[in-house]
């Protein structure tokens, strides 16, 4: 019965538009100057003391003005929601990958965040050369797949381009000994997606989903499809597609899809997350600052 009541709590928050939106003026942090400049921003996250705060971007590396505009909006939101790090869903650099491309498509775009010591954790997409694992600002430590622990959350960056036996074994071994409260996997190809261009990667799903279920992965973050989509929980796992941080495939979501809880394909976006104990709050924000989705996920293990 408790499980159903928790389900209802999520439902109520989702149907009710997530958390009540609060403007910056009602929060306590930041300078007055920033408050004036960003008074139009709406934060749908609780901004609790000692919470874990991070952002998510995917399919960013186009080097276009619109990628820059998404980055600028992230900077503005950081004045009211100081996130510590950013997870990248892959396709970090489209096209050429010379030194100048790393600047044009990444370090120049996110310069303000990098200057503020915000760390980026990348994963490889189908447009990324594997040698990116050695790039200082992607923090991959020379590895195609890796784990990073932040507070009570373990993040697993996987290489979904190449999910071979070695990686599967590594993932199982790591998850099996992981006692973190939250286990979040992020990678490029979405096991579930309602987008028309790519859609659900069933071959990948066949291999990774049983592992996620066996070892209690809570949340899966992906990109590849250039849209935003929050998938209805699948076998209890929360899935997101966040693949429009630098490219957009407008109108690509199939409206007939039964997978979608909420989607947005009219503009580019980024996401913010805040973890408070057994609750994970999220907010998806468009390039122009519109909140396109928000809500809270309850840790599945706490529902038992």
């Amino acid at each position: 019965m408790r499980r159903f009541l928790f389900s209802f709590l999520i439902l109520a928050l989702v149907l009710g538009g997530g958390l009540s939106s609060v403007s910056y003026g009602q929060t306590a942090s930041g300078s007055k100057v920033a408050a004036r400049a960003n008074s139009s921003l709406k934060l749908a996250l609780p901004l609790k003391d000692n919470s874990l705060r991070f952002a998510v971007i995917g399919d960013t590396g186009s080097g276009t003005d619109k990628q820059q505009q998404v980055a600028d909006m992230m900077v503005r939101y950081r004045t009211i929601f100081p996130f510590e790090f950013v997870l990248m869903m892959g396709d970090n650099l489209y096209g050429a990958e010379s030194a100048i491309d790393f600047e044009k498509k990444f370090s120049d775009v996110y310069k303000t965040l990098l200057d503020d010591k915000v760390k980026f954790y990348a994963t490889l997409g189908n447009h990324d050369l594997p040698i990116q694992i050695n790039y200082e600002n992607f923090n991959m430590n020379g590895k195609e797949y890796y784990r990073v622990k932040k507070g009570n959350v373990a993040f697993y960056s996987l290489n979904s381009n190449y999910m071979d036996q070695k990686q599967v074994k590594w993932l199982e071994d790591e998850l099996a000994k992981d006692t973190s409260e939250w286990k979040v996997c992020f990678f490029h190809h979405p096991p579930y997606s309602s987008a028309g261009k790519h859609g659900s990667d069933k071959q990948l799903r066949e291999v990774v989903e049983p592992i996620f279920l066996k070892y209690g992965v809570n949340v899966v973050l992906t990109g590849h499809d250039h849209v935003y989509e929050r998938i209805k929980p699948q076998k209890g796992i929360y899935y997101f597609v966040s693949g429009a941080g630098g490219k957009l495939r407008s109108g690509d979501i199939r409206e007939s899809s039964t997978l979608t809880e909420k989607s947005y394909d009219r503009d580019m976006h980024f996401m913010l997350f805040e973890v408070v104990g057994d609750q994970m709050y999220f907010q998806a924000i468009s390039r122009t600052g519109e909140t396109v989705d928000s809500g809270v996920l309850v840790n599945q293990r706490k529902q038992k």
Partner: protein
Amino acid sequence: MKEKMKLGMGFFWVALVLSLVCFPNLSHAGVEPAQTKPEPQVSAGDKHVITLFENRVKNYLKLRNKVKAKLPALSKDSTPEQIESYRKRFEDALRSARAGTQRGDIFSATAADYIRRTLRTEFKGKDRAELREIVFEAETQGVPLRVNYPYPETKELTEMPPTLLLKLPQLPKEVKYRFVGRNMLLVDRDSNLIIDYMTGALP
């Protein structure tokens, strides 16, 4: 009091019904056993073919690591300039060291035949359709089918379906299988060189 209880129960049933309608799978959160397909039996002849293929890959690895050892090491927190310079130098050095390498030096005729058979027999019906869908959606037109040539950095790297990778001979992390159309390539991870290729791999 009774009214309050009635109201409370009503609220509960509404919550229950809504939860079941909107989150039919949530109650399954947690553990589900992994479903594994039975592994196919590999004949003694095929085992031998796989061993020889793996040995040729190991020989390649020895050579590339020897070449790599002569280059200044690439650190795990390199700048873009260091990455670009390293990639170019590694590519050039490896090409020189492998001058004269022929197509089929690693994908021998018997190895290529084994891979074609594996794909044909292991991927049928829906599985094959999904495999082809993944491979053919990648934009790889213009990738040269030439040994010792770099895989163009502007071209997409096809996702290798995990169900397929679990069935192919295993490779060290420095070497990757890649599809270009129906053809299969072996590509060096760090230098991006096409080490070898076979045609018509995908049925």
